């Protein structure tokens, strides 16, 4: 009885064992081209729908704005008017008569400076508020009120304080983007599981090691949520601030185009502002993904 049972097992098991690798071998080769085909399909699925929508919208825009006496130019006119700006973004005729690249890079520099400052100060303040109950009680109501002040409302005050456009613009970026960073960091710190604190206590990490080895990695997903909201707000604020302070920058470029009735240039600039804002957002999101790859899956 027992013998036959074993025998049957052997008989059924053997062909399977032989067949399995053969199947695997034949299967492994062809997928190469199949993977490419699948990748192409997946890309197409993602790329084609937005392209169709954009094409349709452009068509509608063209039809609506084509009539004589239309207030806004149709896309064909926009392209014709701004062809030089598109094709040569690097010209520099002195003053503010520069290519779009220089305007964008001036704006990006202001954002980079203001945003870096707010990231550093925001994370530091967030850690303080998240870690200390008294700091939270004292500072949180203040933050909740200050964060509702619109970015541009800070501009006159900062112009009065700094007496110069450049630092004022940077300050507006700073003060606009700092609140979500503080608030999210504080929430992240408050949500560090007690387990991690216990581990740190048993291992006897000192406060500095606790900060770098437990606190920051544990709160990283929250911090990056704040940073991502912050970069979006910075980019919103810079365009508005530059319209008022003047000089080189994409915000003033738009304002200047409006004053000289170059509506096509405004449309082109808006297009660039949108793209750059999108790229900035993706950049911070990507950075967050890399940094928090361990924590997010916990």
């Amino acid at each position, binding site marked *: 009885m027992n013998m036959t049972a074993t025998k049957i097992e052997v008989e059924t098991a053997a062909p399977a064992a032989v067949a399995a690798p053969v199947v695997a071998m034949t299967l492994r080769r062809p997928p190469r081209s199949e993977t490419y085909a699948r990748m192409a399909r997946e890309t197409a699925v993602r790329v084609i729908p937005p392209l169709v929508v954009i094409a349709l919208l452009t068509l509608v825009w063209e039809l609506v704005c084509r009539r004589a006496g239309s207030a806004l130019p149709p896309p064909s006119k926009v392209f014709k008017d701004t062809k030089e700006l598109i094709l040569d973004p690097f010209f520099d005729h002195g003053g503010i008569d520069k290519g779009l690249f220089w305007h964008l890079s001036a704006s990006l520099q202001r954002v980079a400076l203001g945003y870096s400052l707010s990231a550093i100060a925001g994370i530091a303040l967030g850690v303080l508020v998240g870690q200390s109950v008294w700091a939270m009680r004292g500072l949180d109501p203040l933050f909740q009120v200050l964060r509702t002040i619109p970015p541009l409302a800070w501009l006159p005050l900062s112009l009065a304080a700094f007496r110069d456009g450049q630092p004022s613009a940077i300050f507006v970026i700073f003060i606009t983007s700092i609140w979500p960073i503080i608030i999210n960091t504080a929430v992240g710190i408050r949500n560090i*599981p007690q*387990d*991690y604190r*216990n*581990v740190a*206590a*048993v*291992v*006897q*990490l000192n406060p500095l*090691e606790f900060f770098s*080895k*437990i606190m920051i*990695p*544990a709160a*990283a997903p929250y911090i990056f949520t704040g940073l991502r909201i912050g970069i979006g707000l910075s980019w919103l604020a810079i365009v508005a601030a530059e319209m008022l302070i003047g000089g080189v920058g994409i915000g003033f470029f738009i304002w200047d185009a409006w004053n000289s009735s170059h509506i096509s240039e405004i449309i082109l600039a808006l297009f660039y502002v949108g793209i750059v804002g999108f790229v900035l957002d993706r950049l911070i999101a990507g950075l967050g993904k890399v940094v*928090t*790859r*361990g*924590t997010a*899956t*916990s």
Partner: protein
Amino acid sequence: MTAYLKLDHIDKIFTRGAASTEVLKDINLTIEKGQYVSIIGHSGCGKSTLLNIIAGLTTATTGGVLLENREVNSPGPDRAVVFQNHSLLPWLTVYENVRLGVDKVFARTKTKAERDAWVMHNLNLVQMAHARDKRPSEISGGMKQRVGIARALAMEPKVLLLDEPFGALDALTRAHLQDSVMALHQKLGNTILMITHDVDEAVLLSDRIVMMTNGPSARIGEVLEVPLARPRKRLELATNATYLKCRQRVLEFLYERHRFVEAA
């Protein structure tokens, strides 16, 4: 009997506003070096609180903990804890999780290469060296707990504290891990204090079983010596008269004399 770890008249009262609850009352216990002691009781009896007091994560309201005749009241690597839910840091690899403690404890006494070797040695002890570069999210629950044990062992604790270490595991993994802990205890001769609510686990692993009465004001109700020779074999013990008697004794304590009132 030489006291290695001594719990001396420990009371613990939790106060919240005007209300206060006495969780532990007059806990006295001495543990010899190299002994494996389990604390068993119904949930809510304060056994985890007791472990936290020994670990230094909570302070006793009165009384204290003596380790080698010196009072300990703050956490430290000499009383390493294996937490119930493994508590590995998810952003570190298996190796880095163990290394974190090793780097702190042996900062002065071991060179970098020695510390690396020591981490690998401890991962080998729990058979987890193959997963050194994996993150906790990539390994199974049993494996995580093994790494947790390696992390605690690597700190060379005087007393190893296990807080329901197998509670979150399935039965098969649990049995496997119990055998591993038994083998480690046999090999290294650690002093181990384990919190559990599993009667079989307590009898199988322990030299002594400390049975706690129900809270509030939980006390040590009874201490049972388990006179079984080591190494112990799970299968042989299933029919062993001493094993069954010990098991019976604990069951009687938990389900007859100190039934869990809320569950009844």
